[in-house]
């Protein structure tokens, strides 16, 4: 068994900032070439800046099938392989169910769940042929615990866990693992929008009594991508400071 990830190629969606950026940087530290995606050209440029010679940023709307195919074709022609797929891109459109619009539901499900179906399908042929591959889906603690105002987000994040288990069973015999990392409350733009009162309420439920750092999620992702995790599949690793022990 090789113990190095040197020379592998990874695709990380939603890599402009926060958890995705931390994942990209930690993969680079392991010698992995990283293609990070952003929803905007300026975001893609900022990814290219921080990756330097270790990869590049690309613009990708994960809800757009043609766009996904174009990015995968680019990776194929420029890098020739894809060893690691990290489905990290995600959005929130919070609303109480009684007020939730169809488009709030659809956009969250499309971006957070359907995109993962499409991306996994897109990378499957290459990984099957090489008899190796790592897929890591970023779920969320609220996919397990629920959170008021987030029926759409919680459904998508719980959906990822079921999707992960089913796909893991389909392709385990081909040397490909599929796992989730489920962050708790992490110090990112997504949680910065919380009010101080909301944060206090959350802290009272976190034994670690603090927000997690993006790097602490990235560490779990890198572990699942590493050769040492080859026998772990269909699993969800919760990284949440003890707020939910599942």
């Amino acid at each position: 068994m090789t113990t190095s990830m040197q020379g592998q190629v990874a695709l990380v969606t939603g890599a402009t900032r926060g958890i995705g950026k931390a994942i990209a940087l930690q993969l680079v530290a392991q010698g992995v070439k990283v293609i990070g995606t952003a929803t905007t050209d300026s975001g893609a440029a900022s990814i290219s800046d921080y990756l330097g010679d270790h990869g590049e940023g690309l613009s990708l709307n994960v809800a757009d099938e043609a766009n996904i195919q174009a990015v995968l074709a680019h990776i194929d022609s420029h890098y020739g392989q894809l060893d690691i797929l990290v489905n990290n891109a995600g959005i929130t459109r919070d609303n109480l169910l009684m007020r939730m619009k169809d488009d709030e539901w659809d956009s969250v499900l499309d971006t957070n769940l359907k995109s993962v179906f499409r991306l996994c399908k897109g990378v499957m042929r290459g990984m099957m042929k090489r008899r190796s591959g790592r897929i890591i889906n970023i779920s969320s603690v609220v996919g397990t615990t629920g959170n008021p105002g987030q029926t759409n987000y919680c459904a998508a994040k719980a959906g990822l866990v079921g999707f992960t288990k089913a796909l893991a069973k389909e392709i385990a015999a081909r040397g490909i693992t599929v796992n989730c990392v489920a962050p708790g409350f992490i110090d990112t733009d997504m949680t910065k929008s919380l009010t101080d009162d909301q944060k206090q309420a959350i802290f009272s439920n976190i034994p670690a009594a603090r927000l997690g750092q993006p790097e602490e999620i990235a560490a779990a992702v890198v572990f699942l991508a590493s050769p040492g995790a080859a026998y772990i599949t269909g699993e969800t690793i919760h990284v949440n400071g003890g707020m939910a022990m599942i």
Partner: protein
Amino acid sequence: MSTIEERVKKIIIEQLGVKEEEVKPEASFENDLGADSLDTVELVMALEEEFETEIPDEEAEKIKTVQTAIDYIKNHAS
């Protein structure tokens, strides 16, 4: 240059790890040659690459025996 039939059979032998004498025309991949559904998907992928063609999903689902594979390629390969 091998015939289409020989090339298809060679791929079936490689992909499914079966013996040449088992690859009879009427042999079913799943019932006779021990393939599971994913093996069959991979077999179709291998045929697509060998013959540089793209087999649509609804056609791929009909390729269940050695003969249906040979027939499909004969009718569609350039």
